[in-house]
């Protein structure tokens, strides 16, 4: 079997395992979603047994059926895109809610994560290349930003730049008075404007780790023999820095980047809470607060697929970055 085929097979098995756990977990938890919804409805008026039955059917809470049948239904639902109906946003289907929330999270956290990586790696490369320069003094500062609890840093920046000086908006994903969601210039402009501050907080709090790691790898790579070879070959310093030093020093960071990409979808809960951002994180929080199992399961599914997908992509790319990890034929 080819390298690619083996990798894909491995990830398919991992996905199946994750889906199965995702199926089992809510069923092992105490509490019944049907009861919760009935209680909510009961506050507005009497609930008839017929209504109760139809809600149970609607939520897929047909708990009389044997587990294996439920499992088959669940897998069929995933394949056909039927993830059930949300209680919180009743009667909106879960898939639709996730479809609305996901682009916000992926673009905000995704771009911020990639930016943090690029900034950190770039500065780390320079700091390691010119060891002892002013860039080295940046290292403790950035590590401090990382050590400070993220929510506190985010709140502080929010207070300074949105409340005190109102350079940026306080909350939300876009200005819903002037723009409507869609591919129009007004909306994109507004979304970028609203997303800038959250993105800055994420970059500031996370690029220090990349910087420190890259700088230290750079320093140890520079003492390798092949760097001396490159110098003796009379290559230009930029070429030595990029092709010989950084090219080797970046390898451990690439593996770390794969992991952090996977957490783009799930790692946004605090950010989205602080900035009241309409993404997957706030959706998940809503779902947990309302014991909305269908929605929770849907969000977990998306997170699982995101982690696996990001890892698969980086796994495949890593073979390009480091020839030594390619499968031996």
């Amino acid at each position, binding site marked *: 079997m080819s390298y690619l085929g083996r990798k894909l097979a491995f990830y398919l098995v991992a996905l199946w395992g994750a889906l199965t756990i995702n199926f089992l977990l809510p069923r092992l938890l105490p509490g019944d979603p049907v009861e919760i919804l009935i209680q909510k409805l009961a506050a507005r008026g009497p609930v008839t047994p017929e209504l109760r039955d139809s809600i149970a059917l609607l939520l897929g809470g047909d708990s009389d059926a044997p587990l294996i049948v439920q499992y088959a239904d669940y897998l069929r639902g995933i394949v056909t895109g039927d993830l059930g109906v949300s209680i919180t946003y009743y009667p909106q289907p879960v898939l639709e809610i996730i479809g609305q929330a996901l682009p916000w999270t992926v673009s905000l956290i995704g771009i911020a994560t990639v930016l943090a990586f690029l900034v950190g790696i770039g500065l780390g490369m320079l700091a390691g290349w010119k060891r002892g320069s002013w860039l080295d003094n940046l290292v403790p500062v950035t590590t401090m930003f990382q050590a400070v609890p993220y929510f506190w840093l985010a709140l502080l920046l929010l207070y300074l730049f949105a409340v005190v000086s109102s350079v940026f908006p306080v909350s939300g994903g876009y200005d819903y008075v002037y723009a409507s969601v869609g591919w129009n210039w007004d909306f994109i402009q507004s979304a970028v404007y609203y997303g800038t501050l959250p993105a800055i907080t994420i970059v500031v709090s996370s690029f220090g780790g990349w910087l420190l790691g890259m700088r230290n790898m750079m320093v140890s790579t520079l003492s*390798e*023999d*092949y760097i*001396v*070879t*490159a*110098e*003796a*070959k*009379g*290559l*230009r310093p930029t*070429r030595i820095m990029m*092709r*010989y030093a950084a*090219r*080797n020093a970046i*390898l451990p960071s690439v593996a770390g980047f794969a992991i952090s990409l996977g957490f783009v979808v799930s790692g946004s809960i605090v950010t989205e809470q602080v900035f009241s951002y309409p993404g997957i994180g706030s959706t998940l929080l809503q779902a947990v607060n309302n014991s909305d199992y269908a929605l929770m399961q849907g969000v977990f599914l998306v997170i699982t697929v995101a982690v696996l997908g990001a890892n698969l992509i980086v796994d495949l790319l890593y073979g390009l*970055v*480091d*020839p*030594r990890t390619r499968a031996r034929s």
Partner: protein
Amino acid sequence: MNDVLLSVTDYNIVYEVEQPVHAVRDVNLELARGEILGLAGESGCGKTTLAYGINRLLKPPAVITSGSAVLHDRDGTDIDVNALTSAQLRRYRWDKVSMVFQGAMNALNPVAAIGDQIDDIFTTHRPGMKRAERREESAALLDLIGVGRDRLKSYPHELSGGMRQRVMIAMALALKPQLMIMDEPTTALDVLVQRDILQEISELRRTFGFSVVFITHDLPLLLEISDRIAVMLQGGIVELDSADRIYRHAQHPYTQRLLESFPSLTGERGAFVRSGDGSQSNGGSAA
């Protein structure tokens, strides 16, 4: 062909640390065109530091405190290595003086194909060359050195130690330099591969006429391949003479002790004769 290629005069290198280490002291050396000069001595005697100094590869705290190294170029100009600006220095390196390092394991970039690493040399030093020309030249080098052009796309980890060292030598040949500095090029290899590579170097030297500064602590090996041998002790050259005279009439007590310290397979202790195959070793030292 007996003119001088490299003159090193009153060369001093100091590692300026807490207690300064005078690694190379008052070295005077003249290297003839096409000559193989062996540089022998124990670890830490300064032989590698001297060689790196000639290519200005030393990093702080190492400082060339006095003296000069002048390369007399083929076209008649004299290049004072210490006076080169960094751009000139980059042009000088590898084009005039190339190096082969000990680290057969580590001297090649592990994440770049060896073809690309040879290609690097041409893109930097011969910007006028076309892509196809560069590739052909790289392939020809690998053929020449006995690795084979089908290895262009191989990575260092896919090659044996001996092959890596051959690739290193192929790279060193790329620009047809006038001087090749070999820093323990065969130390990590087993004796058979070592012998092959030494023969290869001798033949290439005959074909292309470059000079070699061959650094090793293995004095018997130098006796075989060198024209002249310089013995270093604590940063200074204590004896510099033809290989034959060093072998038969070593003057300095340190040289004598060095020779004595190698065990002999036949004859008395100290009466060292090293010949795996008489005709080969004679061929090497007579060249």
